[in-house]
């Protein structure tokens, strides 16, 4: 390598390292310092600040409505929420700075840092985004003790100083007025989007490790519940005749999801099929195995490319097909589903080398017209 090339390589390396280590300082995240308890203790009503929530829409005496038409430019600026000038506030249920300033008039309360944790990047209240359709006015109109009924505690308790409103749990809705909505799975009446909830937070549905093995039974019992979070096409990501791309390869970043066909299942599927015979047939049906095995040349007859060991057709051989078929008939079905009549019946019929296939009392209770195998020899009379 020439000196010039070495310098070029070094410069590129430095540039690459610099690019990788380029550090963007984290943006200050401003929050509003506020204590509900302190305000409540001093007799402030909830609707003094959360005016838009008030049922009547009329604000308490002495409090200017948030949407009152300002008379001067200063009033207009003061009434305008920070950082959203010209647009809607992030959360219209929250008070504007102008509303706060109507009570907080002392000089020390005029400092930005009195309310803002990061005044240099002052922001308004963050949108909490609970993902709910909720009409406060429709609900509060039904109850006399409006806000505290859902959000609060008993105001007579000493804990009022440290009180912070809680978001009512779902059961407070579904065990009272919305019980029928829960039973009918009308989740979307309240929830705008259930997908946003982290699954560990879902109380009614749990997906612990190993859930894969019971998801079928759970879905059978309650497919309506599954579809509240998962789109109906979600099942078909796996449960479908689909491209030759396994589900785990379609979602390689979701490493904690468990798939039946994970980690190169195709390579180990012979062993898997032997271990749990019912697993494959539950979804695929014998014709699926048959089709693939024929396509790849595996099976479909005891010919030159037969995968069977020597002595396979010898009924006395310990490696004969009879023992294996008894142990694992689905493995036979993987290749011989469509040609079983041609392959099995010539030997397994009355008078042939394998003898009478019917044990004593075989015909009792069997309708030959309801069994495909019977029809091979016992054709239906017209």
């Amino acid at each position, binding site marked *: 390598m020439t000196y010039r090339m070495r310098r070029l390589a070094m410069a590129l390396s430095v540039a690459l390292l610099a690019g990788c280590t380029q550090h963007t300082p984290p943006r200050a995240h401003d929050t509003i310092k506020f204590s509900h308890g302190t305000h409540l203790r001093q007799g402030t009503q909830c609707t003094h600040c959360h005016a838009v929530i008030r049922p009547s829409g009329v604000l308490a005496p002495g409090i200017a409505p948030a949407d009152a038409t300002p008379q001067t430019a200063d009033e207009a600026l003061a009434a305008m929420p920070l950082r959203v000038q010209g647009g809607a506030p992030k959360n219209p249920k929250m008070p504007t700075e102008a509303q706060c300033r109507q009570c907080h008039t002392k000089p020390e309360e005029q400092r930005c840092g009195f309310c803002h944790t990061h005044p240099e990047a002052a922001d308004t209240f963050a949108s909490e985004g609970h*993902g709910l359709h909720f009409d406060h006015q429709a609900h509060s109109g039904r109850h006399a003790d409006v806000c505290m009924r859902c959000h609060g505690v008993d105001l007579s308790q000493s804990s009022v100083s440290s009180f912070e409103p809680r978001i009512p749990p779902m059961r407070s809705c579904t065990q009272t007025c919305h019980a029928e909505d829960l039973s*009918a799975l*009308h989740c*979307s009446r309240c929830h*705008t*989007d259930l*997908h946003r909830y982290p699954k*560990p937070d879902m*109380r009614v549905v749990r997906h*612990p*490790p*190993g859930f894969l093995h*019971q998801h079928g039974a*759970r879905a*059978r019992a309650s*497919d*309506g*519940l599954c579809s509240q979070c998962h789109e*109906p*096409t979600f*099942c*078909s990501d796996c*449960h479908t*005749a*689909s*491209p*030759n791309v396994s589900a785990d390869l*379609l979602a*390689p*970043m979701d*490493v*904690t999801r*468990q798939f039946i066909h*994970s*980690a*190169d299942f*195709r390579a*180990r599927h*012979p*062993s898997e099929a*032997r*271990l749990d*015979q019912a697993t494959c*047939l*539950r*979804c695929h049906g*014998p014709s699926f195995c048959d089709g693939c095995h024929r*396509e*790849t*040349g595996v099976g479909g007859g005891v010919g030159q*490319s037969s995968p069977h060991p020597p002595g396979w057709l010898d009924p006395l051989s310990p490696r004969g097909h009879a023992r294996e078929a*008894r142990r694992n*008939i*689905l493995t036979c079905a993987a290749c*011989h589903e469509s040609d079983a009549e041609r392959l099995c019946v010539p030997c397994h019929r009355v008078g042939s080398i394998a003898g009478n296939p019917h044990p004593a009392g075989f015909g009792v209770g069997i309708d030959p017209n*309801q*069994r*495909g*195998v019977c029809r*091979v020899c016992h054709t239906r009379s017209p």
Partner: protein
Amino acid sequence: MCAALCGVLLTWLAPSAVSADAFDQPEHVVVRHDTILNYAPRYELRIDDAAASSAARFWHRVQQLPLYDRVTLDADGLAHGALDVHIMAWGAGDLTLPADRQLASGDFAVAYARAKVLEPISVWGGRRFLTWGLPGGLHLDGIGIEQRSAMGLHFEAIAGRPVGSVFTPIGAHSEYVEPTVAYGARLGYERPGQLAAGVSFLERWGHGIATNRTVMATVAYRSSDRLDMLATSTFDMGAGLEEARAQVAYLVSDAIEPDLGIVHADPQKLLPSWSILSMFAADVYDEGVLGVTMRLSRAVSTRLELAGRRAYLPGGQHDDVHFGHRADAILRYVPVPKEAEFIVELSRRDEATTTLDVGRVGASFRAYRRLRIAPEVGAAIDENAQKRTALLVRGSAELPFGSRWSSVLTVDLARTPVALAEVRSMLRVSYRFDSGGP
């Protein structure tokens, strides 16, 4: 008595059970689109006596590079909440395959529309996957009627033609194979979070024979956030019990939940009766399972599971009984939000004649800005046949661009029973639009 029963039924079905404003379901549309370029060689077993090595003598590599395109639409609440439409369709083409092989393929995996004709009654038509009816579910081209009452009762009836899948070199596609008609009904009760129970009956015909008359019953019950029970059984009215499963879990504390389960499976009865193979005797399996799930923290959970298995030939001799075992361990780290996630899975399964050890370790984390990478290693060792040992080393990287697009590149290094070493890769570009969120 009959009149009273009809009265109860009519009351239950009465449209007034849920007020008309149930139609006011907000519109929610999710569109997904994936374009996938997948390089994964296939192998065909052909005898080539002139080949130098024994491997080359039998297995012949077929290079292929198919391009897949998949579109998914889930639209709920259309027409003022009265109409849902769900479609998943895919198409594939491969110009690297010889002209006499399948060059193009495609299919509708799901395509149905559901209309709420008279709340709470809805009807649907099209191609749909049903979770009930047969073990593993049922794909059906047909029609159905559903009703979910405010009491939690749920009734569903379906009729149509079952859809099977047929393999082709570039993708299995649906086809009408064997079964010609299926119809059935399901009755269920649901109290979300506490009780879900259902019983269904499905009759399936093929080759002029009623091949399945399957009754499935499932109960899932949870009491006081402590006791969790799940029981399901599948019974064919002609063949008898196909499979049954029961599991009881008890939440000892917020962190520990042991469970006990039993499984019975008669795989031979899962074969449809038109198949000649359904007449041959095959082993029946009984399994007892003891497990424990531990939530070590909000993000870390683990599960240990031990199972003993007995396989026997019904009516067979004593020496036909063989015993096996299964041991599974899973450790999972899934924080909220998912900045990084991690899993270790180990499984050992022994069935007297076959022993398989499977392990997988995977992680996914943000490497740089929006770039996420996911390394994964998997291994499967068949102790009875070392040549069947399979190894997989996978590296994936995902880079979102814009708010709705993402690209994923996956490279696999694999050792399989057929190929001692091979490289596969997949490039996927995905788009997701969700009218209800980002």
